[in-house]
């Protein structure tokens, strides 16, 4: 094992071993096609194809690859509304996530500030927040449909480009993704050292100056931790929302392929969701590190 560390090979050999192990396990439990020649009740010999295995409907890695290939080699192809390249779907999902996530930040950050600054407001709002926080996106979505039932924005040609389900989708993403930002900002504001607040008082800083020159910079590291966690949740929620609405996107594609019985592409979707989630988290933590003050 020593030569591994010496050549810095363990950085990629060990992860590779992990991946191979999972692939082997997948291969073992997945269904295998067997073609048998059996005599039927009339005595004729017929060929019969049966799937056997622990999870006989689960496609093998090779089958998954074959089924996914057209979506990967032409990632931006658009063959139909729900038949697009995988990156094309990802793009659609990301657009929706970005919108919902921005709403979450715009609402969550000031709410966090108010919670951090006012003990009275915290006391008033805390029970509501604690009850709303653990509610699943699946539960919020129908409420969103009810709340925004009259939303209908029509473009020039009479086509609805932003309807009830779009509004409900954004609502669901925003309200689920908001809480880490709210909580972390509130904690961050409460954790601002008394020394800094004393400086603001002694220098007679105005309210807005105290906010922008003292409170916000001091809270920024906490806020960005909240932003990162919120983005993770927003990405989780998007899949659920797309599955419920059936709108084009990674989650919508996943649900459609399940209904169509092409299980191989479900795995493609899962992997895509995972990889995009990881990339988003890495990007945010890079931004977060930049804002680590003091």
């Amino acid at each position, binding site marked *: 094992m020593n030569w591994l560390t010496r050549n810095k090979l363990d950085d990629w050999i060990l992860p590779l071993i992990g991946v191979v192990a999972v692939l082997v396990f997948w291969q073992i439990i997945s269904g295998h096609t067997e073609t048998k020649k059996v005599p039927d009740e009339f005595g004729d010999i017929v060929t019969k194809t049966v799937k056997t295995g622990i999870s006989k409907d689960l496609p093998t890695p090779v089958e998954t690859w074959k089924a996914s290939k057209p979506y990967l080699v032409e990632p931006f192809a658009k063959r139909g509304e729900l038949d697009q390249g995988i990156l094309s779907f990802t793009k659609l999902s990301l657009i929706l996530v970005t919108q919902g996530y921005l709403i979450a930040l715009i609402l969550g950050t000031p709410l966090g500030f108010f919670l951090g600054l006012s003990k009275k407001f915290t006391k008033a709002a805390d029970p509501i927040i604690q009850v709303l926080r653990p509610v699943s996106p699946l539960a919020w979505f129908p409420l969103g449909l009810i709340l925004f039932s009259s939303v209908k924005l029509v473009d020039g040609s009479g086509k609805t480009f932003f309807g009830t389900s779009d509004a409900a989708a954004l609502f669901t993403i925003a309200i689920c993704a908001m809480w880490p930002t709210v909580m972390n900002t509130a904690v961050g504001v409460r954790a601002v050292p008394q020394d*800094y607040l004393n400086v603001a008082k002694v220098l007679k800083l105005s309210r807005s100056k105290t906010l922008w020159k003292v409170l916000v*910079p001091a809270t920024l590291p906490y806020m960005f931790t909240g932003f990162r966690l919120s983005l993770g949740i927003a990405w989780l929620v998007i899949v659920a929302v797309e599955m419920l609405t059936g709108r084009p996107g990674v989650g919508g594609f996943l649900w459609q392929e399940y209904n169509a019985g092409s299980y191989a592409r479900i795995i493609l979707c899962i992997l895509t969701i995972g990889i995009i989630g990881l990339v988003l988290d890495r990007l945010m933590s890079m931004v977060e590190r930049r804002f680590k003050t003091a």
Partner: protein
Amino acid sequence: MALLELNNVNKGYGTPGDRTEVLRDINLKVNEGEFVAIIGYSGTGKTTLVNMLAGLLKPDSGEVLLEGKPITGPGPDRSLVFQNYSLLPWLTVTENIALAVDSVFPDWSKEQRMEHIQKYIAMVKLSHAATKLPKELSGGMRQRVSVARALSMDSRVLLLDEPLSALDALTRATLQDDISDIWLRQRKTVLWVTNDPDEAILLADKVIPLLPTVPATLGETMLVPLDRPRDRKAMNHNPEFKALRNHLINLLLDAKGKNRAVVSKKLILPDILPEDISNMTSLQMMNRRGPRRRSEEKREEVEVAS
């Protein structure tokens, strides 16, 4: 009329039932242009006293006056140098000072303010580090910035709360000299809180001890009639300086001594006599009745070397 005045000020912390009185019966007068040092042990309430003068805390009873008017909150007429510098880490040296200048002189033009800031950065000899962040500076340099920030407010009173306590002895000496020089030029009213007797006598016109009684109260004012500028090296051999220092240290030590609480505790002395167990077998050891005790011995033979 005194510029700063405290009359029968009391201050404590906590809620009724779980309360600590910190300061009792504080009476203090600081005249315009005076350099007053308040000296005391750490934890006696020096910071509480300064914070009341700065307007960050309110007294429980008594009055805190500035020119006869009660102090209700912080104001640009009193600037404060904090013990732990309290610079904002996300702002550069210039920006930290600008924060104070912009808020005290909002009517000045941008150039006027910049010039003012630069003047004070130069005064504390930090022009070369004007664009640096606090984390890039040493402790001594940070405290210089903090002093420059306080001075730049051009306030009538400069309050310093143990400004040099966190610094090493050599840096502290240099900064003492520098601040002393600046004071000689500006002759501002200064209230300097410290725990270092040498520092107090070297810098101040008046030294007032904060006696560590519980709650603490101010002792007798000690005047320092030494000529300025006071040379640190010469002071080490100046009999007057030495006498003042001895007096001050004794005053503080006595106050501490008087305050020592008496707790009586019953002491139980060990009551076992030595015995020779080198020739004992293990069986004898097991059946032994225990160690011999002095309190049980009727007679004791003591060998006396003649």
